[in-house]
């Protein structure tokens, strides 16, 4: 794999950029792999990359029924932050945040990580108390955070209506300066390219239709391209996780809901940070292209339809218009839904299962994108060593029977 650099850019400019190497191979499946990862989104590809890079396990296939990064990786609002309340979640997301900071160099692929800061607004006294509590908890965990008053918020984001004329006036916010955004597609492509160059086979248009077991343990996956044997099978399929679990007669504490987002027509730069509000429920950033990227909520009811209901997106756009009166006449270009896998405590499941050789990484719900590198990193460790990474240990599926839930509904950003 040739490295990307300013010199390679210059060299290829001489041949009119017509001779760039393909970014990854399109291999035919081998008969046997050490690890088969089901799901070629960000988390699955990151898992494959770290398996190869940190654990030397390169006989790995990523099996994807569609195309790489075509599910929720392509549908999220690309926000990165690590200001979670509880120690377990804070450590996990901060682990991810630290990986983001060096990810472009590590992958030799520009993931356009942009630490432009994240504001979480407070609109009433209880919001502000929760914000203070969360920022204090963050700082005790070594995560940057500040509590801002309305004037400081206005200084950071002049576009935001911080006046007392607003229907729900902004009283203040929490501010994580290291938070920001990254380019979602580039994250999937960067991990895919880096994993491929280490020998991982990326098998697209390959749908898993069954998980085969031998004497209780997993021995491979049935796909639409035939049987692929594997010593270990790792499921990283977000909204479809329950369907895979069902193939081996397992139930997961997961419900799948559509989560919506939309983008506007591209406009000139007006917003250089990420603004989130749980109370009125809208969040917005502006992409480098100029689109306003707006996240809505989940449908209250379960669904696999990859489209959300109209009242939900209407509610969010009403909130956005209240928060940013200047954008009221901006037109929306596209709206879409993705199927998110919500858990009862709004924390993910990164876990071994009672079936030897079968692993699940799911339940990221409405906030998985920010965790992509960290999730892959700890999950790769869990698979390679067959024991949970210390950061992943609290996120075992056993917690739903032991009662050690990690309630992150407050920090998860989207109410569910």
């Amino acid at each position, binding site marked *: 794999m040739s490295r990307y650099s300013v010199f390679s850019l210059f060299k290829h400019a001489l041949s009119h950029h017509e001779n760039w190497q393909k970014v990854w191979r399109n291999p035919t499946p081998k008969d046997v792999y050490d690890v088969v990862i089901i799901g070629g989104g960000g988390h699955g590809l990151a898992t494959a990359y770290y398996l190869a890079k940190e654990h030397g396990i390169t006989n790995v296939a990523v099996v994807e029924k569609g195309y790489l990064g075509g599910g929720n990786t392509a549908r999220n609002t690309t926000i990165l932050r690590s200001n979670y309340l509880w120690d377990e979640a804070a450590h996990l997301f901060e682990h991810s945040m630290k990986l983001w900071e060096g990810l472009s160099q590590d992958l030799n692929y520009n993931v356009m990580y942009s630490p432009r800061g994240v504001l979480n607004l407070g609109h009433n006294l209880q919001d502000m108390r929760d914000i203070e509590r969360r920022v204090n908890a963050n700082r005790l965990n070594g995560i940057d955070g500040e509590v801002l008053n309305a004037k400081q918020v206005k200084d950071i984001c002049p576009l935001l209506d911080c006046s007392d004329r607003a229907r729900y006036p902004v009283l203040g916010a929490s501010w994580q300066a290291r938070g920001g955004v990254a380019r979602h597609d580039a994250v999937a492509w960067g991990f895919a390219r880096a994993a491929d160059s280490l020998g991982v086979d990326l098998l697209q248009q390959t749908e898993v239709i069954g998980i085969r077991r031998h004497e209780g343990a997993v021995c491979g996956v049935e796909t639409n391209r035939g049987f692929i044997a594997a010593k270990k099978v790792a499921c990283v399929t977000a909204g479809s996780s329950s369907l895979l679990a069902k193939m081996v007669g397992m139930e997961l504490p997961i419900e799948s809901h559509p989560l919506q987002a939309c983008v506007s027509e591209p406009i000139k730069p007006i917003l250089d940070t990420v603004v989130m509000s749980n109370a009125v429920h809208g969040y917005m950033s502006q992409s480098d292209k100029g689109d306003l990227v707006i996240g809505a909520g989940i449908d209250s*009811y379960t*669904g*696999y339809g990859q489209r959300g209901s109209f*009242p939900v997106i209407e509610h969010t756009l009403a909130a956005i218009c209240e928060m940013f009166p200047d954008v009221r006449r901006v037109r929306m270009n596209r709206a879409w839904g993705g199927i998110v896998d919500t858990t009862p405590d709004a924390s993910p499941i990164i876990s071994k299962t009672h079936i030897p050789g079968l692993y699940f990484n799911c339940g990221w719900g409405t906030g998985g994108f920010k965790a992509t590198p960290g999730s892959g990193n700890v999950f790769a460790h869990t698979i390679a060593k067959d024991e949970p990474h210390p950061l992943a240990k609290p996120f075992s599926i056993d917690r739903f*029977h032991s009662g050690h839930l990690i309630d992150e509904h407050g920090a998860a950003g989207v109410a569910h």
Partner: protein
Amino acid sequence: MLHLFCPYCQELREEDEFHYRGQAHIVRPKDPESLSDKEWGDYLFFRHNPKGIHHEMWYHVSGCRRFFNVTRNTVTYDIYETYKIGETPAVTAKEETE
């Protein structure tokens, strides 16, 4: 936008009037004292999450404020029936009847 027929009001109304209350027909444990951690966990946190036919409870919060059940397809969002609490659904998934 879903349109739900409330079996109590006998009217077809828009989804804004209702709250979703999750999987239907969950039986409360008769003898909670004797439940194991596994059984409690299953009762509290584990829900069916089918791709296809789903029986679920809805609450007519802006109407009669009563609970009722709905059989809905979670892919097409077709609503096959709504029925009162205590009644059994007429439409069921194939695997449920096996």
